């Protein structure tokens, strides 16, 4: 019961305030919808205490997410590399401002101490900065001029593959997530990502930072829910060009890779993901197509 203020000062007993809790929703096409199926599922901390209910995406949410990603692809892939780098750096800035929130969410989701969580948040922010820097540089590393036996200037350029479907790592809720989506975005792809099933909340909060980072709507689309339910639809979707199975256990990857083979998707299924190590450029090179141009000389 709210108590009546006495004169100009409130009574000693503070009014009890109803907490405003966040609804953890999907992020599709720059908007935050609930699942079209109306489903949600409980997310708990490692001890089993309820943290929140997250949206449980259906295959139709996935379909909508792929449509949004396809629609956003033209704009994002044609943005200059310099501009993409600026946007990715902006994401790092936005995350920095929410540092405390991410630390608290990681502690809740993964357990462990605040120090470890803080280190993970810092590493995630740094990872955006790392890839932002690579944005206008990887083409020089991955592409280049080729010596050919003829009067031609021959050069190869990496171009984005298209829509990349990603299953994010299950353990590391924030750093793992950033480590798989950032490289795909850096090279100009658009992304549909399924967050960790048990620990989706930090990734959902990250999308709130993305929404204020000048990242065009639809460039990254987040689904939360059951990987087992969503991954087959992602793998078989004919409008998805690449598949990143980092978050799928090795034993479950074969049927997904087979479904992806039907449309000749690029499939990335790394044995391990070392989050502590410097990322290198292997993930940047994973989801690009190489275009080679023969330019006549002496004309």
């Amino acid at each position, binding site marked *: 019961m709210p108590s009546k203020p006495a004169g100009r000062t409130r009574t000693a007993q503070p009014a009890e305030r109803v907490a405003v809790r966040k609804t953890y929703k999907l992020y599709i096409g720059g908007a935050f919808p609930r699942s079209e199926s109306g489903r949600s599922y409980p997310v708990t901390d490692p001890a089993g205490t309820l943290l929140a209910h997250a949206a449980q995406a259906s295959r139709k949410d996935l379909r909508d997410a*792929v449509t949004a990603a*396809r629609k956003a692809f033209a704009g994002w892939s044609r943005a200059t590399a310099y501009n993409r780098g600026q946007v990715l750096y902006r994401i790092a800035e936005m995350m920095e401002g929410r540092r405390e929130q991410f630390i608290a969410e990681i502690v809740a989701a993964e357990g462990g101490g605040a120090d470890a969580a803080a280190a993970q948040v810092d590493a995630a922010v740094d990872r955006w900065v790392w890839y932002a820097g690579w944005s206008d540089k990887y083409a020089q590393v991955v592409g280049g001029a080729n010596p050919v036996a003829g009067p031609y200037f021959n050069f190869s350029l990496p171009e984005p593959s298209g829509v990349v479907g990603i299953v994010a790592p299950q353990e590391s809720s924030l750093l793992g997530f950033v480590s798989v989506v950032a490289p795909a975005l850096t090279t100009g792809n658009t992304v549909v990502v399924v967050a960790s099933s048990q620990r989706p909340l930090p990734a959902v909060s990250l999308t709130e930072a993305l929404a204020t980072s000048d990242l065009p709507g639809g460039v990254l689309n987040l689904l939360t829910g059951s990987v087992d339910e969503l991954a087959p*639809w992602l793998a*078989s*979707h*004919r*409008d*998805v060009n690449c598949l990143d199975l980092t978050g799928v256990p090795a034993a479950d990857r074969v049927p997904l890779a087979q479904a992806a083979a039907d*449309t000749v998707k690029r499939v990335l299924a790394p044995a391990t993901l070392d989050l502590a190590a410097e990322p290198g450029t292997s993930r940047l090179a994973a989801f690009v197509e190489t275009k080679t141009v023969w330019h006549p000389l002496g004309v």
Partner: protein
Amino acid sequence: MSIALSQTSASGAVGTAAAGLADAGRDDASLRRFLHGLPGVDQVGAEARAAALATRSIKTTAKAWAIDTAIRMVDLTTLEGSDTAGKVRSLCGKAARPDPWDASVPAVAAVCVYPDLVATAVQVLRGTGVQVASVATAFPSGRAALATKLVDVAEAVAAGASEIDMVIDRGAFLSGQYAKVFDEIVAVKQACGSAHLKVILETGELVTLDSVRRASWLALLAGGDFIKTSTGKVSPAATPPVALVMLQAVRDFAARTGEVRGVKLAGGIRTTKEAVRYLVMVNEVAGQRWLDPATFRFGASSLLNDLLQQRHKLTTGAYDGPDYVSID
């Protein structure tokens, strides 16, 4: 002004039950009396009814049937200033065989082009069963002298068009010159000869549903074989409430005269979901009798691609993408 209703197909089969209708077209005053005597449309009610029909869920085998039916009802259309004979030829190829990988996909109903490209389309489509429709009468504005419009129609028919999509003079209709619009439709119908006549009402410019109902009846009385929503050049084009009112008009016209006329929805229908909703509406408002390419059509270009993608989804079980259908 006297209106020669005897020249129209509306009069031929009109029996005694339709005596009132024959009178309606006798002169300007009786036409006005009839059209303004039509019951007004409850706009809120029409929108609610259209929205309620859109909530039906059509799945699995019913969806497969609806997709194939919708494909058979498509008037594959290209009406751009940049159209070329080559583009029309490729469109005709697609009309006859929408999916190169799957011969079980039915052909579309017709190809709709500008009059000067009719000959090209006729040549490619000979023997396929796909009709060639042509827009005419100074499409899309309809702002030309009647003589010019009739020449436009005659040339399209001479080139081999079996269906003519004419536009009404919206300016005349909105200023209440119903007889002028009526006479024009009658004259165009005559110029069509054996070709089917679709009368484009351009409902986006008629403003109210009451006007849509009046224009629908006017076109039906004057002998239009189809009433068609839009040119596709004006927004809004086909909307569910407009479709509802037009379907009611053909249903009521058939009830009073025994003659079954068609409805063509054109413009803005791009997804299978929308198309299936309209099929539900046809079935519920007009009746099952109208679920046929002879009496219901979709004027569309991009709709066919979405129908094919949804068909792929049903046959393969995987979501399809635009990479697997032709661009035009």
